[in-house]
């Protein structure tokens, strides 16, 4: 038993494990790069890097083919920490190595935390428009909005990931239960009159009965978006109420129940903030006589709900706005009046900077100590000679 424990420890602290893991990382990056032609940049990140095991679909059966990024990264981290705890005894001569390795550990942990915590959103603003929310570029949500209150909307947001056929969704905030009758991650919607042979609709109310839904394979191309669609049945205390078709290609649909008005919409996931960003002016400069972009910038007004901040900010390439844990980057434009800001929430954004500084400092200290030692030795030798 004692030997087994020892072997276990030896395995985790071994340099061989480090080499194997580094080699696996290289293969992982290479294979994922090749797979990018099929899945696109976001698809491979989920499949190859943000997973414990890489699963490949063989005729509908997911088969594990390679350890995923989380698995390799976690083992590397354990290997590094365990080796330190097991082997390393601190003394001043090795302080540089210690700081460098600590920096490496922080870099690995920072990357893991970024993967886990970072959220990307986008904000599309046309001159004169204000928003206190940004939207997810890839994830959607079914928003059930109680609009009865004249001043406020009470929103229940159901992530698209929960819209799975047969799933029953319930929350104390709603007087009815939502049961997903069918769900298509990507679909084409056409008026039924244009598709005479379309199968019968599951929807019983709203625009749904008049729309034909044709499921499509999911797209992973960067310039295309999936158009999800779901049939959802509302079930109240007295039983089934009605069935709706929701899709990002449909506008809001409203419904009255027990004296309250609800609005349903399948929309990009929203992230609300306690401040409002208004686009005052979007500037788009091109090189004279060409359509080649020279510079683009957004002058925005930033106002917090509590009135503590009200100022103008100029956002341009490499000069983002950082405010309340969010970073607003100038990401794109649509015409000469509309800007796209990329909004990133990453609580661990400082860690890579700290890690790099530590690695740099550690190396300087280590080489510095060696140099001093070498110089001393040499001067001693000269003195003896």
């Amino acid at each position, binding site marked *: 038993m004692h030997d087994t424990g020892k072997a276990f420890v030896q395995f985790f602290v071994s340099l061989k494990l480090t080499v194997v893991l580094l080699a696996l990382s290289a293969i992982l990056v290479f294979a994922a790069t090749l797979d990018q032609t099929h899945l696109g940049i976001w698809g491979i990140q989920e499949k190859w890097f943000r997973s414990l095991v890489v699963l490949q679909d063989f005729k509908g059966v997911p088969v594990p083919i390679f350890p995923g990024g989380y698995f390799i990264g976690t083992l590397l981290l354990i290997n590094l920490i365990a080796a330190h705890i097991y082997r390393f005894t601190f003394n001043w001569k090795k302080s540089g190595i210690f700081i460098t390795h600590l920096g490496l550990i922080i870099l690995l942990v920072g990357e893991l935390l970024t993967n886990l915590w970072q959220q990307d959103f986008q904000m599309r603003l046309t001159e004169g428009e204000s928003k206190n929310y940004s939207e997810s570029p890839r994830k959607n949500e079914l928003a059930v909005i109680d609009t009865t209150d004249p001043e406020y909307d009470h929103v229940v947001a159901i992530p698209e990931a929960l819209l799975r056929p047969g799933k029953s969704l319930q929350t104390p905030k709603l007087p009815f239960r939502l049961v997903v009758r069918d769900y298509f991650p990507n679909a084409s919607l056409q008026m039924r*009159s244009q598709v005479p042979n379309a199968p019968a609709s599951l929807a019983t109310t709203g*625009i749904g009965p008049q729309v034909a839904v044709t499921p499509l394979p999911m797209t992973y191309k960067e310039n295309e978006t999936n158009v999800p669609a779901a049939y959802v049945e509302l079930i109240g205390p007295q039983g089934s109420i009605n069935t709706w078709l929701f899709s990002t290609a449909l506008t809001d649909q409203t419904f009255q129940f027990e004296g309250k008005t609800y609005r349903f919409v399948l929309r990009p996931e929203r992230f609300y903030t306690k401040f409002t960003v208004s686009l005052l002016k979007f500037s788009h400069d091109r090189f004279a006589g060409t359509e080649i972009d020279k510079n683009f910038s957004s002058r925005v007004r930033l106002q917090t709900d509590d009135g503590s901040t009200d100022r103008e900010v100029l956002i341009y390439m490499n000069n983002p706005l950082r405010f309340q844990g969010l970073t607003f980057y100038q990401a794109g434009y649509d015409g000469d009046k509309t800007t796209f800001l990329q909004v990133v929430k990453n609580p661990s954004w400082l860690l890579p900077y700290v890690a790099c500084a530590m690695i740099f400092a550690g190396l300087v200290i280590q080489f510095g100590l060696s140099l001093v030692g070498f110089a001393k030795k040499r001067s001693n030798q000269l003195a003896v000679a």
Partner: protein
Amino acid sequence: MSLRRLLSVTAAASLIALSGCRDSKISSYRVRKEAPAQPSIPPAAMDGGVPKLHWKAPADWKEQPAGNVRIASFSITTPEGGKADMSVTQFPGDVGGALANVNRWRGQLGLPAVTEEDLPKLVKTTTAPAGEFSVTEFGNDNKLIEGSKHDAMIGAWLKQPERTWFFKLSGDAEIVSAQRDAFMAFLQSVEFAAPDVASDPASLLDGAAAAAENGAAPLAGGPAAANRTVTWTAPTEWTPKPLGQMRKGSFALHGVDAAEADFSIISFPGEAGGIAENLNRWRKQIDLPPLAPTDLAGASSTVAHDGLRFTVVNYLGTTANGPTRLLGAILPLENETYFFKILGPDAVVSQHKDAFIGFLKTVKVR
């Protein structure tokens, strides 16, 4: 030593636990009301409303994934190892015209370019349900590599005002020749479907508007800007009804003998297909034939008040319920269009005509 081991295991366990802590949950929150939400632009809208093609392909044509340019792609193989490729593509405009197309294809086979005078000999036309196809056919008898097979091609194009569709079968001469009839049958099977709903919002609004008046919601596609608030004051004898799903206002108008007419107020983003299209939609609801836009103008009047201009119509038709009158007004605003409509038995609607015009004058836009 045991402490070290404990630390290692704890670090490993916490990291593995951390990696599994992202899951989706229902959330709820309260937000201040905003201007009506901006509809998202579905990707189909980005393709500029290119109609979808349907066809029937022979069973021995193996469908291949379509690429960035190809709309459809098939491969045809023979047990002897012969190969041919069939592609369907689409480009805006006429792509240089017939001569340029023929010479481009000839160039692909290593054949010399031809002149305008040669075209009538090389290009034939064939009529199919989708339109008139120009078909050309040629082969290269010179073996590029000794022992290789001859290459041949049958190409066809279909010109439309905005774009040209290309159908090309190319490969080993024997297969291309054997598949000639199948290719021509393929052209005959080509059909155009209407553009996607999402790519042509105007085409939807007819159906969607009718649905909304019956209590449903329209499909996305309107403009983004914030809408203004529209208010009105209804006569007290009009009985308010539940709003339904899309109605901004809904009233029952009473006549003698418990006869009743329905008054609805709805709005749609943008022009909602235009006034002419909507007036014809209304005419259809009371079984009246559609009118040309010029005739429609003559059959409507304008009520102007407080800077607002209503297009008002008064139509009498005969439906299954007897003489039915539709009294309607359309109010285009900056980003949306309002529709006010009384529909019901002729006697009841006529009785409320003056009240309707009076009502329109109470409409205010803030």
